[in-house]
């Protein structure tokens, strides 16, 4: 009888502790959730949605509009230079702000890059680099960002230093050669009678060299 009672008391001691153990476990889980490694940057759209935006191809700021954006002081356009600081210091589009590519996700740059008042035109050395940055920002839900057509390496010599109207519409993706024609002429062999192919026929005589270069390739 005595032992039974003692056992009962022991049992009660343990059961009295259980709620505290439970509370401690709940506390630990909550602490864990607070310090959980949460993604700092959240995509606002799926890759499929981004693909559709990309295919619309309305994200380009045409080079023809560039002078309006530079010289019209009331312009709603704001250039963002994504190149490195030394490159920016050497030369940049008038009025451009320098935010190097690796800094675009810094929180202090968010209020510049994601805003409603101005339309941001980002540029990099090439259009491809700026386009990649644009894709990241766009997927994070940033608004009002356009990509400068051609990139700075194109705009600087063709638009700013010396205006070249012929180049105005050109893009990176425009084929600059008639591919098949070039391939034809490269394949042009000694029987060819066209004058253009005279240069190329000399290449044909170099075939043995080609073999050696092929061998060198491994």
């Amino acid at each position, binding site marked *: 009888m005595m032992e039974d009672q003692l056992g009962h008391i022991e049992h009660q001691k343990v*059961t009295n502790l*259980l*709620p505290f153990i*439970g*509370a401690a*476990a*709940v506390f630990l*889980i909550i602490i864990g959730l607070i310090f959980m490694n*949460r*993604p*700092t*940057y959240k*995509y606002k759209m799926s*890759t*499929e949605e*981004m*693909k559709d935006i*990309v*295919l619309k191809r309305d994200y380009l700021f045409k080079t023809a509009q560039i002078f309006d954006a530079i010289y019209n002081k009331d312009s709603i356009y704001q250039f963002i230079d994504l190149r490195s600081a030394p490159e920016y210091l050497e030369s940049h589009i008038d009025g451009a702000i320098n935010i190097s*590519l*690796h800094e675009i*996700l810094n929180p202090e740059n968010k209020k510049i890059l994601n805003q409603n008042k101005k339309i941001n035109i980002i540029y990099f050395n*090439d*259009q*491809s680099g700026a*386009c990649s*940055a644009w*894709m*990241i920002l766009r*997927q*994070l839900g940033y608004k009002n960002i356009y990509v400068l057509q051609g990139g700075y390496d194109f705009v600087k010599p063709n638009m700013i230093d010396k205006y070249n109207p012929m180049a105005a519409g050109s*893009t*990176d*993706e*425009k*084929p*600059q*050669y008639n*591919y*098949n024609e*070039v*391939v*034809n002429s*490269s*394949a*042009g*062999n000694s029987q060819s009678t066209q004058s253009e192919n005279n240069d190329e026929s000399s*290449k*044909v005589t*170099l*075939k043995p*060299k*080609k*073999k050696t*270069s*092929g*061998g*060198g*390739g*491994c």
Partner: protein
Amino acid sequence: MEDKRYIKKRYIFINVIMIGLTLWLLLLPKRDSSTELQADKLLLEIIDDSRFLSTDYVANRIINDDKYILLVDVRSPEEFNTFHLKGAMNIPIDSLLNKDETGEYVWDSYLNTDIYKVIFYSNGSVYSGQAWMLTKRLNFKNNYILKGGLNEWFSTIMLPQKPAANSSESDFAIYEARKGAAIYFGGGTVSVENKSSNSNSNVPVVSKKKKSGAGGGC
């Protein structure tokens, strides 16, 4: 009797909290798309140029008949049919992310493998860069971009410029390799789609090239 009821109440209380937390934890993974590459990691990927492969490298790989590169043409089927690089497959950007009935990406077995080095190309490097950005966010492995695209392919490989007389030896070596490559690619692709008169004369050329290509591949 009193005690037992008291304990039961506390147990129920803990159980409810635990079950609640468990359900919450179960729901968390839905919101967290951890298989995707987060924006900051994606930015790190585009800061350097490791995603680009040079035209010289790719030409060398094709000539040496590398089975482990996969050229992916992201242009439209019309452009692809007019001209494409040897051995390339056509995946326009709009079908890049297509899924099958089970929700798997259709191209996953080509674009996301340890085996193939996938090289996206377009006319320039903007569209191929976009394709790369889309698959990179999905964490596809071994994806690259042909630097400068077909335009650079043609200006360097198909129409190599002779280096100035005072250029270094390595410049001349590159030039010789490119000239050889121009002949290789000139013969290889043309015979498929061009005028019969040309392709007739190309036939022996093609066979020679194949031999030399095999020699180069050891």
